[in-house]
């Protein structure tokens, strides 16, 4: 735990959100397109091995934004492919992102159960 990681987490995470807000306000791009684009960007950066250095520097500033989701998908697929061959692309795809997807499904389902239906 060092304070520099916290500083960079704030600056990098905030900076990413800053740029995204500018894109939303100044272009016609809507949130859905932006988030999808960020995920694709994360996949490409992950494939090139360019996103991990940012995670090392900024910690949560890099792992919290949705770019990290694309990066983790790509890294899971690549890591498993290196171990088991081409088939690893299929088996390793959700290796690293399973926590996020499972948590999101479970919590969404629970929230729907405990909340009164609208309308």
């Amino acid at each position, binding site marked *: *735990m060092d304070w520099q990681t*916290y500083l960079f*987490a*704030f*600056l*990098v*995470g*905030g900076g*990413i*959100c*800053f740029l*995204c*807000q*500018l894109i939303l*306000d100044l272009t016609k791009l809507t*949130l*859905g397109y*932006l*988030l*999808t684009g960020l*995920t*694709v960007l994360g*996949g*490409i950066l*992950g*494939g090139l091995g360019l996103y991990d250095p940012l995670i090392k520097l900024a*910690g*949560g*500033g890099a*792992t*919290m*934004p*949705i770019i*990290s*989701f*694309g990066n983790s*998908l*790509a890294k*899971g*697929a*690549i890591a498993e*492919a*290196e171990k088991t*061959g*081409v088939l*690893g*692309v299929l088996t390793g*795809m959700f290796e690293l992102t399973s926590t*996020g997807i499972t*948590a*999101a499904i479970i*919590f*969404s*389902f629970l*929230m*729907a159960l*405990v*909340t009164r239906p*609208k*309308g």
Partner: protein
Amino acid sequence: MPAKKLNPKQAAYQKKVKKYEPKPNALRNAFFAFVSGGVVCLLGQALTDFFGAVMDLPPEKAANPAVASMIFIGALLTALGLFDRIAKFAGAGLAVPVTGFANSMVSAALEFREEGLILGVGAKLFSLAGSVITFGVVTAFIVGLLHAILPGG
């Protein structure tokens, strides 16, 4: 609206109204997104360190429970109806981190709750988040194949 020829009085009115129309202040919104996004990521980092210390995990593994916790926070805020109120100011600061991913799924779950658990919640859960997963997987699939096929990875 069809472009209609305005009489002088209407034109003057339009001009007057335009002066009072709220202008989207991009820089101000971006500043709020910076601060709120920074705080969300700071919290994520704090949770990563917390889980790393408590469960004795290396940082890259400790990010998993931290992400799950942030998803829970995003889901809870959405269910309580607080997410949209905060997002009005925070904008991308709340939508771009994983809290936004949780929000898109929970808001879909709540919106279609009245259509039942199976055809509503079950079927529509990914109606917003689906495109992120689909395009993420397609990208990662191509990237992974290239790595596996190209010599030297």
